[in-house]
């Protein structure tokens, strides 16, 4: 099984999920659980940091679609940051920038939450 891990940090009321390794069909449940847990804890302001993510498959992308509605319904958002060009290219090809705010660095994304 491909290597993938996540960890969650807090910055004020924003939760930051760090992704590491390969996000594909096998590892997607880990991220699903992260989102599900955050929603359960009513933490809807989420920044996902892609700094250490090497690869994302379409199933991995689907995880983001599966939770966004619920999170936005609760006045929250998932903002994406620190993508490598390779990863960004996939997000871009599929049109994610239409739906998600994608930032170069994490602080920018966090600031957006406090600004709104």
């Amino acid at each position, binding site marked *: 099984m491909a290597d993938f891990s996540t960890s969650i940090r807090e910055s004020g009321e924003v939760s930051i999920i760090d992704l590491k390794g390969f996000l594909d069909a096998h590892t*997607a449940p880990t991220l699903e659980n992260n989102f599900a847990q955050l929603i359960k804890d009513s933490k809807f302001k989420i920044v996902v940091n892609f700094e250490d993510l090497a690869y994302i*498959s*379409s*199933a991995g992308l689907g995880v983001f679609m599966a939770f*966004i509605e619920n999170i936005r319904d609760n006045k929250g958002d998932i903002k994406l940051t620190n993508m490598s060009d390779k990863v960004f290219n996939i997000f871009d*090809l599929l049109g994610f920038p239409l739906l998600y705010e994608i930032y170069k660095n994490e602080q920018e994304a966090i600031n957006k939450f406090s600004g709104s």
Partner: protein
Amino acid sequence: MQEAKSLKVKRNLTALVDFSRIINSSIDLEFITNNVLLTCLGKFLATRGLIALKENDKITLRASKGLPSELLNQFPEIEATVNCVDHPELISFMNTAHLKVAEKISASEDCIGIVCLGEKLNKSDYTEDDVEFLNTILNISATAVQNSMVIDELRKVNRQLDSRVQRLSSLFELSKEFGSFNESFRVVKLLVYSILGQFLVQKYAVMLFENDEPDILDSKFDNANLLTLIKKYDLQKTVDSIKKDTLKSHYAELADFGVELIVPMQMQGKTRGLIFLGTRAGSRNYSLSDIEYIYSVGNLAIISLENNRLFLEALEKQKMEEDLLIARDIQRNLLPQTLPEYEKYDIAALNVSSKQVGGDYYDVIPINDEKFYIAIADVAGKGVPASLMMANIQAFLQVICRQDLKIAEATAMINDLVTANSSEGRFITFFWGFINTGTNTFTYVNAGHNPPYLLRGDEIIKLTQGGMIFGVMKTFIPYIFEEVKLQKDDVLILYTDGVSEALNLEFEEYSEERLEKKAKEIMHKSADEILNGIKEDVQIFTQGNLQSDDITMIVIKVR
């Protein structure tokens, strides 16, 4: 004056050289168009203008300044021809938009775009010189525009290629992944996620037809409503994908429900399930290649789901076979291992169980030197439940025949016990009796069983006295018993319908007639020989046909 004019020319020239340098230093189409437009506006002090470029042989708006968007939306669709600037629709648009001049950008005689400019800030008209200068600017920019258009096109093609590659690698990955999950819900999740991620969809449903019944596996629609609509529109007959337009015209309620695309999941040409998708983000449509992709992913998933189902079925079957082995063991252990021996009675018994576990039972229970019971029963149904029922009967029998009860009363008691302990529809045909070796009498009760034969000389007496079959209801009409005086050479034959109803390949029954005929023919032989004679006769009759029911017989010959 002369000097002023030459200064103006010089300034114009410097500006042109500058412009040329800037514009040719870039391959960014947006930068170039922007620059051309701004240069023109600045040069002629115009407050509005637009630039439109050739795209698929049509002139398409690329950049504009000072024009409100509701006007821009009216920009006409015109062909990129040599005289495109004279197109009546363009002229009428220019009037509406207060645009004064239109000049084309040409590259080697071809029109690759147009520039339209609004009136000058000082309200003066465009002079011939102005138009000439405008053309000079456009001629300078033509090469840069064309080059950057080519590069733009290349970028687009590249992106399309990237997109294709991404889809192919996704499909490749998915085809590996689907096979690696053996839990159906994981397969469905993978299917859903890969489609959501690929097309930016939030509303979806995945359903299968299980034995023609729709079963929703995962959904963000209202399931109850969706099920109703699936049935209403008979969607199981869906062979091709149903797109937005068709949904609106033929499946209005689904369209109102938010469904924008239905893609069937097929296996061996049969629709086994459906994928429902809502709108895509950015209100983009599903293209043909999108639908093809979804179709491919869906079919990968259905194969995996079907494999999982077959695997579970195989497991279930294996478990059932194990159950049957246990049942058969129970059954075998219930039948008497040895038969009692009496001086005046020659006893033989036989049970050949069919491939499935049947519900036949027989017993020979010696009570003392002068008395023994014989019993034969056929429990409706097969398998474990029938075996357990048999075990019950045997236990009742073993206990009750030692209680010194009258046989008719004892029969009623067994029926009451069976009725109380059996589930609905589980009947038992039962025959039992005891032989008193001192008085040579056989006292029996027949509870709905095939009447046993008493062969005496040329005569066959059928032992029919008794009452109701076991397990239907509590005894309310008492059972009748009959006592038969036995004579030397009498032969008693007890059998189950597995004997008389054994089928040959033409689906003919062995029948009671054949049984009676054979029995008469060999009644002079020993009990064992009669038993085996009948068994072989049945086997010859059914030759080649699989034995479908148990064959059980007891033969007693009076010596």
